[in-house]
């Protein structure tokens, strides 16, 4: 073992809190206290590894230093792919750094050290969430997530592919969280805190797996950090500061049952940091000796407040090496090289030490294949599966699940350009200088720069945009160059070009900002406040106007959209108005008829003996209702345009019956008079086939379906014929004049002037709805019936002029509200991302017919980001459940399926596990037959288990529900085999 303390690695004497070696081993990062801020420094590894490189002045030692953290940096960690560096500090921030494509060195302006940055690392993302110092950060295997823990007692899990999205905040610690480690298999993340506990959380559902407190009960919160570590084989988790018999230890926790039977003993003070070697080792084969299989083992370094470092092999009972007095102060962090032979340690005293082991000392490191084989042995599946697909760190237990995950991945890729990795969130290199050399521009900058006066007479300079965010092609030589005296040479007409360019840049950048920083939409307010200034300025500098303009786009669009949505509504209203006007005549006619009829009844009452005839009595009652409510006059309703009713007896009219092939109904009243009776003719024709029949009264409404034709006459009779013209039933005597008549399949629906509804199945000759009053839906409103129709399944639907639509459920005998234009849930529900393109067809049906327009309005409203997410989530959930129930009550199978899938997707996206489980349970039903079960295997003629087969792939897209998926997938498979 060789030991080196490279004195040049320092933060000018300030403490170094964290160190991490880049995965490629060429550089390492340190984090700690800077001079006036937190400091992150990236160092070259070569001078540490080789003495000749250390002496060679041409080889840089410091590659880059970043002073952006406002306060002490507690942790620096490279992503596993080496592209990013995450740092967390006392300023409550986590910053994610990325190397800019930059060639030359530059210094930090005004910084005391004149050392140039050889590499340019730029902050690409600032993660703000913690309300206290960030103590540790950790990238998950495959860089799916970034975890950060803080003295605010929480752990934030960030979506590393969609910064700054937070996947989950883990709450449960009651003390400062000071260390994090991911399970190398990706199933868990462990955290250690000052609350005397170590907690293991599942990555599947982010719930607590176990809480270990016993070894920590005696611990005092005396260490700055508690960096725990997970062994590379995943079998052991080793804590930082634990106590055993009043002695400081590093507790070993077995994955199997989270047993705490072993520990690393020997340090005299609290253990601050434990770090496993990334390699798994096996015994070095001695030359000549017979190779005998030896158990692979791991290697672990332990650092303590007692300033000493110990390195352990799990195959040995005693430490491999203990180094005392390596530092003047506590050890803060340890990092291994990826090859497992090098080790960097940093200390509060501001120095680092490098330990170089030989393979003789540690053993033969296993290669990745062997390591995977071990994982395969232990966990059943090799980690390589997930490595290959790069899906997630979660082991996918179920091959079906894997398939859906892969499908999802495939689907995302074509349009996923904007959603993978932070690099997309940084505008790419764009030189806005149009090929002009910067030197030329500088020479004329004073002359050419746009200077205006604000309203209050102040000078305002529009700065020259020389590069968009993070450009690499911008010459760094500028910074150390000798200033050029202005006016020495002239290159003209440059500025207008630049300003226009920069203005387009503005707009681009602005769009980027709005899309990625939703929180920034608030700054619209101050923008507005500045409007006057903007306009003032735009007169002078055309380039400037683009800013308010681009900002205007969003609200403008919104206005446009809403007006375009309103338009059809308005049209709708006017058209119904005109319909009303058209209907005015029949209406008054009907009214007169009603009066007439009333008179008739009175006559009857006088004549007949009510006590004898119960039929008449009920009749009288209905008349009374009518008289009392005066409803009928209002009720006479416009019917669908195609079926214009003619209560005013027209001489002749024709109706188109929309069936598969279009059929026409022609009515001619009073065709002939036979022995004093006036005859009316009904003529039906389709594809050249036709028939006609004669009726003794004048026909008011005629309509038909693919199976039947129904005709209402002036004398309140209803006749029903087959499409061949055969009379199905003798004339039905209606209790009141007809307002609307609909046919669908074998169903006939009549809406009578007395505000009652009847629906018959003429094939089975049964009544589905019998003289049901519309009072429950009409009373208390001024609304009138604006539309009515009958679904193919025989469900009567009535829309009112107040925007509400009801259907009558004959089994419940209730009116059910299925659509409401004023429903605020519709307005705010946002489920667009749950609608897939294939779904469009499934959405056609009676439900869509009644509320189709509302839905688009809702979609628009959902863009208003004013509603908080949880509220919107709740509204969307409520809305979707309503849709599902409405589709069910309308007996609309295709729509039920459509909404079921959207509902399932929404539940999966938003993580409603209980509801999802209930849904699956209902669809699956009991696996074993039992007589007591009331479970129906079908819903609306759809087999529930078929629906479940459709829902499962949706569930499979969220790894969180892996358990749920597997559970139902297996049971479904079981049932299939039966």
């Amino acid at each position, binding site marked *: 073992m060789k030991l080196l303390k490279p004195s040049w690695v320092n933060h000018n004497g300030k403490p170094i809190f964290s160190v991490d070696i880049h995965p490629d081993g060429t550089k390492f990062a340190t984090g700690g206290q800077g*001079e*006036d*801020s937190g400091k992150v420094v990236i160092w070259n590894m070569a001078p540490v590894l080789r003495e000749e490189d250390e002496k060679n002045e041409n080889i840089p030692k410091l590659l880059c230093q970043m002073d*952006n*953290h*406002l*306060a002490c940096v507690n942790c620096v960690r490279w992503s596993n792919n080496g592209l990013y560096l995450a740092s967390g500090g006392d*300023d409550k*921030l986590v*910053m994610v750094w990325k190397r800019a494509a930059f060639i030359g060195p*530059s210094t930090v*302006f*005004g*910084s*005391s050290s004149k050392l140039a940055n050889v590499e340019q690392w730029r*902050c690409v993302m*600032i993660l703000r969430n913690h309300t206290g110092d960030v103590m540790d950060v950790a990238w998950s295997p495959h860089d799916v997530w970034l975890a950060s823990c803080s003295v605010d007692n929480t752990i934030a899990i960030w979506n590393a592919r969609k910064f700054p999205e937070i996947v989950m905040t883990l709450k449960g610690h009651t003390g400062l969280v000071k260390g994090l480690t991911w399970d190398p298999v990706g199933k868990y993340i462990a955290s250690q805190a000052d609350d005397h506990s170590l907690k293991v959380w599942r990555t599947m559902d982010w719930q607590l797996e176990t809480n270990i407190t016993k070894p920590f009960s005696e611990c005092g919160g005396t260490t700055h950090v508690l960096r725990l570590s997970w062994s590379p084989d995943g079998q052991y988790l080793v804590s930082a500061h634990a106590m055993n018999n009043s002695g400081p230890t590093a507790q070993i926790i077995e994955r199997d049952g989270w047993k705490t039977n072993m520990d690393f003993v020997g340090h005299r003070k609290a253990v601050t940091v434990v770090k496993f070697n990334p390699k798994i080792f096996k015994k070095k084969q001695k030359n000549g000796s017979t190779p005998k299989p030896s158990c692979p083992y791991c290697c672990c370094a332990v650092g303590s407040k007692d300033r000493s470092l110990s390195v352990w092999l799990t195959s040995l009972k005693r430490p491999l090496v203990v180094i005392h007095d390596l530092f003047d102060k506590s050890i803060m962090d340890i990092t291994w090289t990826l090859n497992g032979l090098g080790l960097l340690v940093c200390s509060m005293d501001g120095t680092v030490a490098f330990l170089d082991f030989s393979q003789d000392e540690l053993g033969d490191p296993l290669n990745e294949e062997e390591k995977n084989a071990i994982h395969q042995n232990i966990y059943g599946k090799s980690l390589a599966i997930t490595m290959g697909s790069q899906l997630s760190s979660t082991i996918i237990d179920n091959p079906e699940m894997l398939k859906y995950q892969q499908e999802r991945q495939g689907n995302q890729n074509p349009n996923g350009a904007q959603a993978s990795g932070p690099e997309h969130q940084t*505008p790419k290199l764009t030189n*806005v200088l149009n090929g002009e050399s910067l030197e030329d521009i*500088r020479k004329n*900058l*004073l002359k050419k*720069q746009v200077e205006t006066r604000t309203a209050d007479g*102040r*000078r*305002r*300079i*529009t*700065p*020259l*945009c*020389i*590069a*968009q*965010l993070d*450009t690499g092609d*911008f010459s760094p030589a*500028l*910074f150390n*160059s000798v*200033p*050029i*005296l*202005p006016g020495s040479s002239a290159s003209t007409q440059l500025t207008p070009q630049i300003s226009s360019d*920069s203005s387009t*840049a*503005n707009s681009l*950048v*602005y769009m*980027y*900002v709005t899309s990625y*920083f939703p929180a920034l939409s*608030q*700054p619209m*307010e*101050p*923008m507005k406040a*500045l409007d006057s200034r903007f306009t003032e300025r735009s007169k002078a500098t055309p380039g*400037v106007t683009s*800013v308010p303009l681009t900002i205007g786009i969003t609200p403008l669009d919104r206005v446009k959209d809403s007006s375009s949505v309103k338009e059809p509504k308005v049209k709708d209203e006017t058209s119904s108005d005109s319909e009303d006007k058209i209907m005015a005549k029949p209406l008054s006619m009907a009214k007169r008829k009603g009066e007439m009829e009333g008179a008739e009844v009175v006559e009857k009452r006088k004549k007949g003996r009510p006590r004898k005839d119960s039929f008449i009595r009920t009749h009288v009652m209905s008349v009374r209702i009518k008289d009392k409510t005066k409803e009928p006059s209002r009720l006479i309703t416009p019917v669908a345009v195609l079926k214009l009713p003619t209560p005013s007896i027209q001489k002749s009219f024709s109706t188109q019956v929309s069936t598969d092939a279009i059929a026409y109904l022609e009515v001619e009243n009073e065709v002939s008079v036979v022995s004093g009776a006036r005859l009316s003719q009904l003529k039906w024709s389709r594809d050249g086939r036709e028939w006609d029949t004669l009726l003794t009264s004048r026909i008011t409404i005629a309509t038909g379906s693919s199976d039947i034709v129904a005709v209402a006459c002036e004398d309140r009779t209803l006749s029903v014929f087959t499409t061949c013209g055969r009379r199905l039933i003798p004339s039905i005597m209606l209790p009141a004049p007809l307002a609307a008549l609909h046919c669908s399949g074998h169903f006939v629906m009549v809406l009578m002037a007395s505000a009652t509804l009847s629906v018959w199945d003429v094939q089975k000759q049964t009544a589905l709805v019998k003289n049901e009053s519309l009072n429950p839906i009409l009373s208390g409103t001024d609304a009138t019936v604006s539309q009515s129709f009958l679904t193919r399944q025989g469900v009567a639907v009535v829309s009112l002029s107040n925007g509400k639509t009801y259907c009558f459920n004959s089994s419940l005998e209730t009116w059910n509200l299925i659509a409401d234009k004023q429903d605020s849930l519709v307005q705010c529900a946002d489920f667009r991302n749950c609608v897939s393109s294939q779904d469009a067809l499934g959405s056609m049906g009676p439900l869509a017919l009644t509320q189709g327009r509302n839905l688009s309005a809702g979609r628009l409203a959902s863009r208003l980001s004013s509603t908080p997410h949880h509220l919107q989530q709740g509204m969307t959930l409520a809305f979707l459940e309503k849709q599902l129930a409405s589709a069910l009550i309308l007996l609309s199978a295709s729509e039920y399926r459509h909404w079921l899938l959207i509902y399932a997707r929404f539940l999966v996206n938003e993580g409603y596990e209980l509801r999802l489980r209930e849904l699956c349970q209902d669809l699956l039903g009991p696996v074993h037959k039992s007589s007591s079960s009331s479970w129906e295997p079908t819903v609306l003629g759809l087999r529930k288990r078929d629906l479940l087969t459709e829902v499962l792939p949706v569930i499979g897209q969220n790894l969180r529900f892996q358990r749920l998926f597997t559970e139902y997938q297996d049971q479904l498979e079981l049932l299939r085999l039966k």
Partner: protein
Amino acid sequence: MAKVQVLNVSVLDNPSPFGNPFQFEITFECMEDLPEDLEWKIIYVGSAESEEYDQVLDSVLVGPVPAGRHMFVFQADAPNTGLIPESDAVGVTVVLITCTYRGQEFIRIGYYVNNEYTDPELRENPPVKPNYTQLQRNILASNPRVTRFHINWEATMEKMEDSENVDPAPNAMLPPTSMPGKAPPFGLMPDNSMDCL
């Protein structure tokens, strides 16, 4: 962290006659679009003894500032000689460039300025009443002193939790030894931590 980082300031037209305007070419980088302008000021410290001789030479708004790297030249007239105490006209003083956002100063860049006669005779026997036409102004451009302040960049008027200022570079330049005690304080605000001079 600060949304605006000053990357470089080049002092143009330096050294120059005392009456020439100041010219600074400022390069800065902005991480996000700024909805409001930056306000830059050049302050000439007339006398080391008292802040009351400070002169704001000019203030200018800079905007709009989209995310990216920008540069501009800030030019301001020479100080009004009438406001400078005669005893302080010749020698070392300071010029400050400050930048504020939403009224909060987040960076202060200070330069030492040496005003001296070019004529050796005048240098030997300076007139009691300073002859400004003969004075040359030399800004020590190689040694800027930069102080950064933590400010609230967002529009929300939440109270700044960390209002304490960050320390300036401790081993930055010391005042020229020839002029002990003459260096004026950089810190004009009481909580400014540039008092380590």
